[in-house]
């Protein structure tokens, strides 16, 4: 029997980036916020202090900062015809635990998406005709626009001290920046990070082919920085322990450095750590969320926490799972196409081509998380698809990062996979190789979705979330095409040797890391029949329930998802202030 606690005004599930940003807006207006986080606090722990911070085995290989797969995992099947199996050890994507969430161990790539991303379906229909979108590709507009989010993008970039070069200021294209960038009001708060040797090689080759390379927008601080809240970042030391690690120099902009220490000093803010939310309470008749049930992992006591407003700001997968477990909204059924919870589950379509240079020193150990050089000519709908058998595209980039000794073992084709020859090749090529990567979009497919697994449960006896997912024809064709483009850039660099030029193909393999960018499941939209939450992220079937995170995206773009997610969270914070003043459908 759960112990019932006194009612709170706003309860947020998950203590990551979105929760921190929502809480910043609310507590600034004197509205009380309680955040429930399943993990602990990283501050001053071994993960955040030297020398243990540099333990690649502990934090990277053994996933010391990630969801404990022995406690809660996901099930997978590649199609409805298959049986699902639980994933015993996940490499493909890495949900974080602890204050800061996955944004604590991120690399710091912080994009604004294309101006047309929120209206992607309309864009494709108007450019190529309605028939261009296959019937099983469930693209839909977000119900909001880039213009509405731009002020919040700007605020997020100031708060996180992003380093980059503007490509489009109020419609005027800027030399050195991304010419395909959505229009922004001004420059980035900080200048770009230092370029590596690989950046220089890629830039020269890209420019030689007529492309316009630019520095990747990064949340790794090139200088010490003070944000508008008076919160500080240290200077990046290019140590190469970024993604999968907590930054001990406080040079990576994260919620645990910039938001939570400040929030903890605000009256009306509380965060409970080791509070694992099991269920969101739902009153079906009143169509309202009643609060949440959570387990205190330190004491084993289960609590019921009633709330006026519940905000779901957990990882993509947890947002979807908690709605399914709570019976809130109609689960998506691919056979009938009815229902919306679990729909539009997308991932990312990545590929890469390795290049080897005998006489160039790449030094992959020396890197910031998100430093890199990118071309955007072949991303999303930045190029003409009318004669192509697919939609979408990829950003093509170099980013020599995280070149740690266990992880980074790039050897030329033909090298044996073990033994003396492999050891020698590893030593010979470690400092002389890098890869050109394509980070591709992933569009929603009718048969890619999330639901509750009928057989397998987690450590608390609750059904696992089941992924039915594979790379479908559109993504495989897109990846093949953009990877060839990446291969052409590689050839233009005149390397001594090159790895194979092969796009991403199925079956989806959870043993291979790609990105942590899983999206969808609780999508936003203007139509209650095809979306879970409104354009203001308010649940259609529970006025006082809000969902924020990449779970509200209707598709995944050829960029990292954190930028729009942060903008949506800041805007939600402002919307909730209005909602608290006068509760209603916004």
């Amino acid at each position, binding site marked *: 029997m759960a112990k019932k606690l006194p009612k709170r005004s706003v309860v947020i599930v998950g203590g990551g980036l979105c929760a921190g940003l929502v809480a910043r807006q609310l507590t600034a207006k004197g509205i009380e916020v309680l955040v429930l986080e399943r993990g602990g606090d990283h501050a001053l722990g071994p993960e955040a202090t030297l*020398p243990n911070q540099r333990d690649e085995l502990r934090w990277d290989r053994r996933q010391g900062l990630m969801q404990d797969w022995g406690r809660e995992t996901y099930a997978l099947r590649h199609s409805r015809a298959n049986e699902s199996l639980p994933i015993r050890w996940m490499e493909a994507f890495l949900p974080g635990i602890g204050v800061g969430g996955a944004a604590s161990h991120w690399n710091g790539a912080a994009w604004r998406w294309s101006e047309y991303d929120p209206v992607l379906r309309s864009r494709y229909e108007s450019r190529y005709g309605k028939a261009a979108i296959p019937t099983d590709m469930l693209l839909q507009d977000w119900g909001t626009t880039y213009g509405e989010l731009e002020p919040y993008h700007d605020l997020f970039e100031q708060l996180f001290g992003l380093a980059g070069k503007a490509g489009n200021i109020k419609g005027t294209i800027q030399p050195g920046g991304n010419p395909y960038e959505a229009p922004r009001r001004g420059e980035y708060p900080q200048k770009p990070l230092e370029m590596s040797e690989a950046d220089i090689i890629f830039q020269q080759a890209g420019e030689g082919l007529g492309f316009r390379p630019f520095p990747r927008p990064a949340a790794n601080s090139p200088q*010490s920085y003070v944000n508008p809240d008076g919160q500080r970042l*240290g200077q990046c*030391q290019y140590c190469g322990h970024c993604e999968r690690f907590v930054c*001990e*120099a406080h040079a990576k902009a994260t919620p645990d450095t910039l938001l939570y220490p400040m929030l903890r000093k605000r009256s009306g803010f509380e965060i409970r750590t080791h509070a694992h939310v099991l269920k969101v309470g739902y009153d079906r008749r009143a169509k309202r969320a009643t609060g949440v049930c959570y387990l205190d992992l330190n004491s084993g006591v289960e609590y019921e926490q009633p709330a006026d407003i519940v905000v779901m700001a957990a990882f993509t997968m947890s947002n979807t799972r908690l709605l399914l477990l709570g019976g809130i909204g109609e689960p998506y059924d691919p056979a009938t196409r009815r229902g919306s919870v679990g729909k539009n589950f997308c991932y990312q379509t990545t590929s890469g081509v390795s290049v080897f240079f005998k006489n160039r020193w790449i030094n992959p150990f020396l890197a910031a998380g998100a430093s890199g050089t990118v071309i955007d000519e072949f991303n999303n709908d930045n190029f003409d698809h009318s004669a192509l058998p697919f939609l979408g595209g990829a950003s093509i980039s170099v980013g020599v990062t995280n070149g740690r000794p266990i992880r980074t073992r790039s050897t030329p084709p033909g090298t044996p996979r073990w033994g003396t020859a492999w050891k020698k090749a590893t030593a010979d090529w470690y400092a002389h190789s890098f890869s050109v990567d394509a980070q591709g979009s992933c569009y929603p497919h009718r048969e890619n979705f999330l639901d509750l697994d009928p057989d397998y449960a987690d450590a608390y006896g609750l059904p696992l979330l089941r992924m039915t997912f594979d790379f479908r024809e559109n993504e495989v064709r897109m990846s093949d095409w953009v990877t060839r483009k990446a291969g052409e850039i590689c050839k233009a660099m005149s390397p001594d040797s090159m790895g194979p030029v092969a796009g991403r193909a199925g079956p989806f393999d959870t043993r291979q890391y790609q990105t942590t960018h899983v999206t969808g499941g609780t999508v936003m939209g203007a139509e209650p029949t095809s979306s879970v939450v409104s354009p203001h992220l308010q649940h259609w079937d529970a006025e006082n329930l809000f969902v924020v995170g990449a779970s509200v995206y209707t598709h995944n773009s050829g960029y990292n998802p954190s930028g729009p997610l942060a903008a949506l969270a800041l805007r939600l914070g402002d919307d909730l202030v209005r909602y608290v003043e006068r509760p209603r459908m916004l």
Partner: protein
Amino acid sequence: MLAMAIIGGAIIAVASSVAQNAPAASAAFSQCAVCHSIDGSNGTGPTLLRLIGRKSGAVPGFRYSRAMKSAEIIWDEATLDRYLTNPQELVPGNIMPFSGVAQAQERADIIAYLRTLR
């Protein structure tokens, strides 16, 4: 001896200019402030309150590296200038994640600011 004289000279020259330029001093210090408090509390780094004249590795409650614990340095203008120039050269193996301050003026500004923390 020559190096010492130059360092000493720089400090004297700067100490007088810093008296009129407190904002520069605190601006230069901002790169330290993310880890080091000036109120006596320890964070990622030990507090820098009353640092000048203190022995290295001596703030109670802070967990220092072995290198810093055994460094036996008294923090004054000269040792701080050397340390800030290249922390790994003066105290090899220390675990401060910071590569140093290249500009002599900026180091002098930081040291001038530290002198005010009494």
